[in-house]
């Protein structure tokens, strides 16, 4: 285990050096891309692959001649899973380093900690993470999936396979709360009934009593937007009690941090999920991406949804810059608002001009043998939850995170 780790550090370091080496072919001044991620501390399982994806994307851009003939330089800070450091480094990136764009932030709290700084300093900001939706701010672009994009397709599929009585177990923070409400809406829209909803703070790891409670209610389906390492024990304890063969499970989060690779196949098999990306996607773009990743980091174990979102986010930004012919904020925003799109490892992804969120493909998948097997693909799903509350074309000065009322 330790050996693998060393190899990958070595490869990462080599790549970094390559990316940072000035090349004679480039114009003198570089384009500065600020990256702000937790690459240590409790959230580094999300942050490290995102950091690797950032480097991969920039290395690729530079290898293809940079942007506008200029080299792209990464200025990155490790926020150590500490919200106070987010504020500090955001200030440093925008005021001292004067970067042209910032990609980063993982938790919603970290995004909110830096979003206003980006706005005040007119620094374009990309948040490349699946989140609860509703952020309406002309300065930010979001390339991750939002609840409706997953829930709208996942819930009917799962209910069709099981039945109308649904039990919801959600992480107790705003992502979980909002997603639970969306699940409830779509369960009811599809003629089902939510029999109970339980919320768990992120540090709860003992689900014994909950599993007993679920059995008392005996639903047809359990939908579990649970988040993080502690919550992973739910899936394990669920299987240990032998429930995994009795009541089907669906989740909007299991697998975002490659959790399905931690569970054994006996524990994970059959869990239904819906994401933008799966390593098992059989497209030429994905294959090429995985090979590039493997060449840089030794193996593809680290790739997950958020890493791919990050990669696609950077590529979308690069596309916008090319189209605008400059890295200045306003022209780039206008260029992106024309509905710029790229074909990334997860398929076609386009900027939705109304919300600055992304229209993308969503794949319904089932966990099978520690892999995500694609069952059904829905092309170009729009972020309808955010569209319902946010219209940046009409109100470009909006600066709120809407909480969606259902």
């Amino acid at each position, binding site marked *: 285990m330790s050996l693998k780790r060393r190899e990958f550090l070595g490869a990462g370091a080599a790549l970094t050096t390559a990316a940072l080496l000035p090349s004679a072919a480039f114009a003198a001044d570089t384009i500065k891309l600020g990256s702000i991620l937790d*690459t*240590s*501390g409790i959230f580094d399982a999300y942050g490290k692959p995102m950091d690797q994806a950032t480097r991969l994307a920039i290395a690729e851009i530079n290898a293809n001649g940079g942007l506008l003939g200029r080299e792209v330089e990464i200025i990155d*800070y*490790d*926020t*150590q899973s*500490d*919200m*106070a*450091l987010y*504020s*500090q*480094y955001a*200030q*440093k990136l925008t*005021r*001292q380093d004067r970067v042209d764009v910032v990609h980063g932030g993982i*938790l*919603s*709290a970290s995004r*909110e*900690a830096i979003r*206003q700084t980006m706005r005040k300093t007119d620094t374009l900001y990309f948040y490349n993470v699946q989140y609860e939706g509703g952020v309406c701010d002309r300065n930010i672009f979001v390339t991750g999936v939002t609840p409706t994009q997953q829930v709208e397709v996942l819930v009917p599929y799962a209910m069709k396979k099981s039945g109308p009585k649904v039990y919801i177990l959600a992480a*107790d*923070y*705003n992502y*979980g*709360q909002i997603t639970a409400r969306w699940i409830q809406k779509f369960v009811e829209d599809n003629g089902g009934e939510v029999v109970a909803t339980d*919320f768990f*703070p*992120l*540090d709860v790891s003992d689900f014994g009593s909950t599993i007993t409670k679920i059995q008392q209610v005996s639903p047809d389906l359990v939908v579990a937007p649970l988040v993080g390492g502690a919550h992973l024990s739910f899936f394990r304890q669920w299987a240990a009690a032998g429930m995994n063969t009795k009541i089907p499970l669906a989740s909007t989060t299991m697998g975002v941090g490659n959790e399905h690779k931690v569970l054994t196949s006996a524990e994970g098999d059959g869990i239904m999920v819906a994401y933008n990306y799966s390593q098992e996607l059989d497209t030429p773009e994905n294959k090429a991406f995985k090979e590039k990743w493997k060449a840089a980091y030794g193996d593809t174990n680290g790739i997950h949804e958020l890493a791919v979102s990050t990669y696609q986010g950077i590529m979308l930004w690069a596309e916008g810059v090319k189209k605008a012919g400059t890295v200045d904020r306003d022209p780039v925003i206008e260029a992106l608002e024309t509905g710029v799109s790229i074909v990334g490892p997860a398929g076609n992804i386009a900027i939705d001009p109304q919300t600055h969120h992304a229209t993308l493909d969503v794949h319904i998948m089932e966990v099978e043998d520690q892999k995500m097997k694609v069952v059904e693909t829905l092309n170009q799903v729009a972020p309808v939850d955010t569209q319902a509350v946010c219209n940046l074309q009409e109100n470009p000065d909006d600066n709120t*995170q809407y*909480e969606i009322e259902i």
Partner: protein
Amino acid sequence: MERSAKRDVVVTLIVSAILIAVMPMLIGTYTLTVLVIYGMLGLSLGLIWGFGGILCFGQAAFFGLGAYVYAIAAVNIGESTLPMILAVLLPGAFAAVLGAVMFYGRLTDVYLGVITLVVTLILFKFINSTAGPQYVIGDARLGGFNGIPGFQTLNVPGDSGAYIWGDAYFYVCAVALVIVFLLVTWLLRSSFGRIAIGIRENETRMALIGYDVAARKTVLFAIGAAIAGLAGALFANWAEIVTPNLFSLGQSAEIIIWCIVGGLGTRLGPIVGAAGLAYLKFLLGQQSMIDNTLIMGLVLVIFVLFLPRGLVPAVGSLWHASVGRTARRRPANRRMRRARHG
């Protein structure tokens, strides 16, 4: 004594004026601001632990409480003056109640540590589980894990449109720290402070002299909490978001580490420790060779083993040894006494 007190004030003012003028040239004011705020937080624990012998494992609770009180009040009021005052008073009042419960219950040393730790955990767990829309105070959603963003930040009293931010905010925080430092100095020179030190040294004796030890510890505890609350409110203004992490055990741990590294039983030590280590952490975030947690851990272990009195006293005795004056007395080591009564 009067003359040395005056000299102390003058020296403090001159040194801090120089620092306030020079430091922004070395470190960005934004980062400096948080170092100053952490310094104040360190001082709050340094006061009650170093001079009152109260080891609080939950100083972060008062820091977080101050930040949340400020945020909630600011959302509701929309002007920052009253929220600032509340952010000092409420944590102080909370600590007074908690302190009275503990000290009149004759809880000491490790048991005191457990209670403060548990109270911090309760607050953390509570705030962390308030993501639902039903947790509202006035117009302020508590927001659970995600915290409260977007509240009114510090403004010129009376004019809610005149924000104090950027460099100006740094000067506000720095001056606040100097004022708190001088107040702490004055407190420690007063009878109250000297009696507190007596209590740190020997509770039973002080009780047998006729001092109400529990009441005095409660008051000192509340003062420490009020300072931590002020630091919390200043932090909320700086970060423009408050999250439950402010209450976390990790945060409490850091405060304790600051005091140890800086030097307990000194006024300056905890401030130096806090600012120094927070800056170290900031610098470490810009490298990825060694895990940062590992370094912080090593620093703590090494200090406990080799420099248990902390930096400031060590440097102080070096200075005094070379200048030829006797070093000021400090508690030789951190003891936690079992209560001798009962």
